[in-house]
């Protein structure tokens, strides 16, 4: 059999797919991208764990069980446990109203929901300082009733709710819009009540998207730094969440402890990413796109 890649002139030439780069260009591009990702994503990730275990397991363990660290873990979990369900309920309500009905001002409402994504976290905290601070109307009034908002847990919760506000709604709105209203109308025509329709028809259709939104919301709630730092007052062991505790330890040059707490947050981020990837693979829930 004659060599198929040999031309009449005897020159050998490999076929190159016209919609493809040459192998050389491909390798260069891949190496470029990998180097870039290595420098900016992989090495930082690795360095967290390296720094955390620099002095061995014992130091690592002690940094985590130390009372202030334990308190910050506790506070972080508590804040997320309040903020995430609140935004979950909001996300469900907003996406129901927006996806299942046609009404005036819908596009504007969606823009408003997205607003926290485009506001600096520091400003998200600042607005509550202005609202409840000593110079405001509300702050002194609440204080006279014995209610502390700023430099206390309620302020931290509020700031966290603010920055994580859009996550669930953002995932659910496009998903529910795609699914339309046919299923719900069918259920209602078969005699189901509004609640039954939501519970048995709508919810099963959106559960993976919902989980996905909750996951992202939770990751941000536990990791928020800027907004929380503005309203927290950093009372050690009282109003310091994990990210704030990391900052305090870091500024005290207690690197092992700082990175030990940071490694817990990193672990949380990795679990979030793993679950997210799994959800995408298994159920194609949402896409990774958008603004977080």
């Amino acid at each position, binding site marked *: *059999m004659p060599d*198929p890649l040999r*031309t009449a002139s005897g020159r050998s030439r490999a076929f190159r*797919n016209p919609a493809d780069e040459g192998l050389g260009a491909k390798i260069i591009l891949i190496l470029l991208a990998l180097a870039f990702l290595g420098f900016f994503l992989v090495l930082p990730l690795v360095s967290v764990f390296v720094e955390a275990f620099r002095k061995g397991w014992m130091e690592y363990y002690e940094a985590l069980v130390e009372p202030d660290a334990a308190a910050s873990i506790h506070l972080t979990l508590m804040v997320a446990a309040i903020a995430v369900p609140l935004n979950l309920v909001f996300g469900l309500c907003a996406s129901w109203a927006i996806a299942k009905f046609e009404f005036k001002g819908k596009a504007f409402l969606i823009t408003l929901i997205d607003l926290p994504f485009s506001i600096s976290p520091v400003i998200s905290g600042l607005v509550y300082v202005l609202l409840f601070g000593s110079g405001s109307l509300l702050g002194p009034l609440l204080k006279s009733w014995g209610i502390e908002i700023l430099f206390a847990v309620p302020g931290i919760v509020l700031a966290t709710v603010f920055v994580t506000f859009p996550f669930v709604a953002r995932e659910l709105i496009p998903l529910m819009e795609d699914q339309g209203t046919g299923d719900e109308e069918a259920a209602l025509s078969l005699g189901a009540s509004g609640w039954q329709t939501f519970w048995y028809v709508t919810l099963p259709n959106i559960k993976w998207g919902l989980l996905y939104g909750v996951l992202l919301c939770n990751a941000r709630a536990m990791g928020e730094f800027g907004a929380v730092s503005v309203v927290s007052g950093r009372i050690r062991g009282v109003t310091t969440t994990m990210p704030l505790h990391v900052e305090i330890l870091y500024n005290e040059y207690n690197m092992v402890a700082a990175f030990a707490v940071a490694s817990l947050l990193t672990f949380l981020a990795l679990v979030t990413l793993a679950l997210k990837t799994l959800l995408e693979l298994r159920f194609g829930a949402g896409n990774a796109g958008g603004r977080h």
Partner: protein
Amino acid sequence: MEVTINNIRKEFDRFPALNDVSLKIASGELIALLGPSGSGKTTLLRLIAGLDFPTAGKIFFGEEDASHHSVQERNVGFVFQHYALFRHMTVAENIGFGLKVRPASTRPAKAEIRRRVLELLDMVQLGGLEKRYPNQLSGGQRQRVALARAMAIEPRILLLDEPFGALDAKVRKELRRWLREFHDRTGHTTVFVTHDQEEALELADRVVVMSQGRIEQVGSADDVYDRPGSPFVFSFIGESSQLPVEVKEGAVLFQGQPIGISEPAGGVGELFFRPEDVALVDAPDALFGKVTACRRLAGTRIAEIDIANDGHAPYHVEIEVPLHAPIELGSEARFRPTRWKVFRK
């Protein structure tokens, strides 16, 4: 430009998409590659274009061996099934693209490109739409922009992949006639791929019928319809029925019985005939079966007949009968093919 395809084979991951295909396309001819999906017709078109390279075999453009020329070197006009227009470019920019990407030495001046673009737009009857974006055009208009874009590079041969596949029936008919006129006017050697036999038979000078990576038959519309060269062509083009028969001493036997037609050579084979090539007879040596359905089709009537098969599922044939023929549901019909073909196994 005459195109010669010599013993082309194409494998995708060891799976043969084309198997020893040879074809000669005369200069100025309009040729259709017709076949079901997976028959290799689009693969053949892409090989001619240089969008894929053959595993073995050669392609000549005239005297020149183009087998290993890149798609850019081949200078072919290719119209894609979904047009593949550049949607961020206006109609004029789309059409002028092939001229603009030429190396500086052969690139026409801006004014000249513009003149050519407008001329081509007129030729495809889209004058005045040069500033539109593809998104703002109808399907038929996009198709003609794609054609004008392919023509702009003065291709040596024009290749069209399912050119009317994405259009609705009415536009498709119009464009079909328009393309024929366009071809007659410009005289370009043209190859198009289609799975629609009506389109192929109506439009092409010659039809290349393909199946499973092979060419089954090449011929005019009359050739492939009236003188099908293989069982596949007989059943793929037009309506037909087939029955297993045996030829003995010049007579065609069905289930061991003579059916009143004759064939020269002997052996076991398949009898093919078309519904319209049948006559009702009143004779013992004929095909017969039970009429299971009867439907009116324009000026004639189609009878569906089940021929008993000794306990197995009956053979199902369809025949055309005169409007007033004494055919009744459930009754027995006797008939003989008047034109037929026996393909020996």
